[in-house]
Structures are given as structure tokens and as C-alpha cells.
């Protein structure tokens, strides 16, 4: 089954219709997704700015990791749950959205950054834990994180707009390719 077929199957499920057409459920899930930006991206930004040596420079990096990152993770769990529900409510259109696809790419890059930082950079923190100005590898991770999460927020917000939707043609060839638009059967 292709991903598009899977999304079409999702769209036909009862839960999808209920969620999409509910007067309060969809706005509630959507609002929660936005509200938890305060916690998730908010705490991520503080953590990134510490890595960049801009704020809380007197706090050891390992202490920040122990005390702040659990809140980032808690916020992320809610973002994932509400985010999955938002996709589930409008599966086909979201799957074929250039903004959603851009967001997915930025998310993957953000995870590569996190994985690399925790695997290769943070384990060596002992030598620079208390420094205000951290080594370039750590500052680089903070900078990449801020830029990527900002792009993720912007791309995420733009999913709501239909400028590049597949059912609005003609679109530039790149859009049709990137969104995976499928030509209607008779054309």
C-alpha cells in the first residue's frame, strides 16, 4: 500500500470524519498544538541559547540538560500526540502539502542534530561544562536547533494555507513533484 493509499484509507475511517467535523475537537487539538509551543519550543530556545552562550551562562550545561530537557521532552510528547491527530483529521491533503513535507524534512534534520549532539558532543561536556562560551560543536548544535525549529513553526503554520494545494492547478512543476500530486485518472 502506498502512503497516499494509506492516507485515503485513513480519510475513510470514522474517527477521521468525527475529528475533522467536530465543532470543538479539532480546534481543541489545534490549540493544544499551538499552546505547547510555549513549553516545547520555549524551553528548547532557552536550552539552545545556553549552548550559544547567550543566556544562563552561569549554569553548567549538564545541569541544564538534567533540569530543562525533561520539560522539552514532555512538551514534545504532547506536540507529537496533537500533531498526529491533526494529520489524522486531514490525511490526504496534509500528505500532499508542500509545507507539511518541508516540515517533515526540517524535523528529520532537527533529529539528526539532536542525535549527533547527544551522541558526540554532550558526552564530552566535562571539559567545558561550566564555560560561558562553549566549543563550536556545541554552539553549532544550538544554532542549528533554533533555525530548524523556527522553520518547522513557519512551515507548520503554512500547512493551513492552500496556495500550493494539488487541487488548485496549474501549479509549478516543482510543486506538483514535491507535493506528490497525482493527475486525476481521466487526464
Amino acid at each position, binding site marked *: 500500500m502506498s502512503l497516499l493509499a494509506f492516507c485515503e484509507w485513513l480519510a475513510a475511517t470514522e474517527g477521521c470524519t468525527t475529528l475533522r467535523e467536530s465543532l470543538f475537537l479539532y480546534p481543541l487539538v489545534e490549540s493544544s498544538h499551538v*499552546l505547547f509551543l*510555549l513549553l516545547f519550543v*520555549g524551553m528548547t530556545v532557552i536550552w539552545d541559547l545556553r549552548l550559544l552562550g547567550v543566556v*544562563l551562562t552561569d*549554569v553548567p550545561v549538564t545541569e541544564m540538560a538534567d*533540569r530543562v530537557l525533561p520539560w522539552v521532552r514532555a512538551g514534545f510528547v504532547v506536540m507529537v500526540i496533537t500533531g498526529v491527530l491533526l494529520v489524522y483529521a486531514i490525511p490526504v491533503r496534509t500528505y500532499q502539502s508542500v509545507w507539511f513535507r518541508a516540515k517533515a524534512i526540517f524535523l528529520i534534520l532537527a533529529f539528526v542534530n539532536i542525535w549527533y549532539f547527544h551522541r558526540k558532543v554532550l558526552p564530552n561536556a566535562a571539559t567545558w561544562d561550566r564555560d560561558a562560551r562553549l566549543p563550536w560543536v556545541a554552539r553549532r548544535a544550538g544554532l542549528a536547533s533554533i533555525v530548524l525549529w523556527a522553520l518547522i513553526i513557519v512551515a507548520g503554520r*503554512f500547512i493551513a494555507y492552500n496556495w500550493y494545494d494539488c487541487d488548485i492547478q496549474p501549479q509549478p512543476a516543482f510543486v506538483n513533484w514535491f507535493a506528490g500530486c497525482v493527475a486525476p485518472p481521466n487526464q
Partner: protein
Amino acid sequence: MLLPFFEWCETVWLGRVVVGSLWLFPVIEAVHLLALSVLGGAILIVDLRMLGFGLQRQSIRSIARQARPFLIGAIVGLIATGIPLFLSEPTKCYYNNAFWVKMTALAAALLYTFTIRATAIAAASDEPGTPVRETARQMVAGALSIALWVTVAAAGRWIGFS
């Protein structure tokens, strides 16, 4: 009573520029969300500490002092982007309950943050290296701050739904 003012807002050039553009509203809205995220960090890193979570080993005053430029910067960014968003549809806002809830909560949150919360922070001990247990006053101040700002953000999102 305020309706004539809101109707006059319809004529302000900035709002007309936003309405006349396909991209401007979404872009400003996205920047509004970016500033909201920074506000979340600047508020929560302090409020969580006041509640006894997060950076427990650091003094409340030290965290608040360092978070302050980001708090101010985020508020300035939110207002600077919020004004053109409002000017693009002032009459719609006038008849929108969520808009009034948001503006009331915003006034309360701003007033609260720079008076009661600031005083509660200033009253906290600030001896370097000796974390002091947060008092009931600080805990209430932190919880109220979260409640107020979450109300502002939630009502703000709800403007778009109604």
C-alpha cells in the same frame, strides 16, 4: 461605543497593505508564533523555578534577570506583529468574543508580570550557590503567571476559529 474606533482602524494603511497581500498575513502570523515561543521560554524557565521545578539549584532572581531581555523582546515582537494582524480585520475582531478575552487577559498578564510577579521575584533570596526553597508566595506567583499567559495564547488562537 468603541465601534467607531474599530471602524476607523479599518482605514489605517498598514491594515490595508496586509489585506492586499496574499503572503503578508500568514508571514506576520508565523513571526507572531515565533515570538510566542520565545515568550514561552522566557516565562516558563522562571515560573517553573518558582514552582520548584526546572533549574532548582539556581536562584529565582538570577534566572529572572537573565530571562528578562528575552521576555521584553518577545513581548515587543508579539505586539509589533499583533498590530498589523489586528489592523487587517478590526471590525471582525470587534464582534469576536475571543478577541476581547485575549485583550483583557493580555492587559492582566502584562500588568501582573511587571508588578506582582516582578515583586515576588525581587523578594526572592539571591545568594549565589545556595538555592533557597521557594515560598508559597513564589509558587502562587509562578502558577498565576502560567495561567494568565496560557489564557492569552489560547484566546488568541481561538480568534481564528470563531
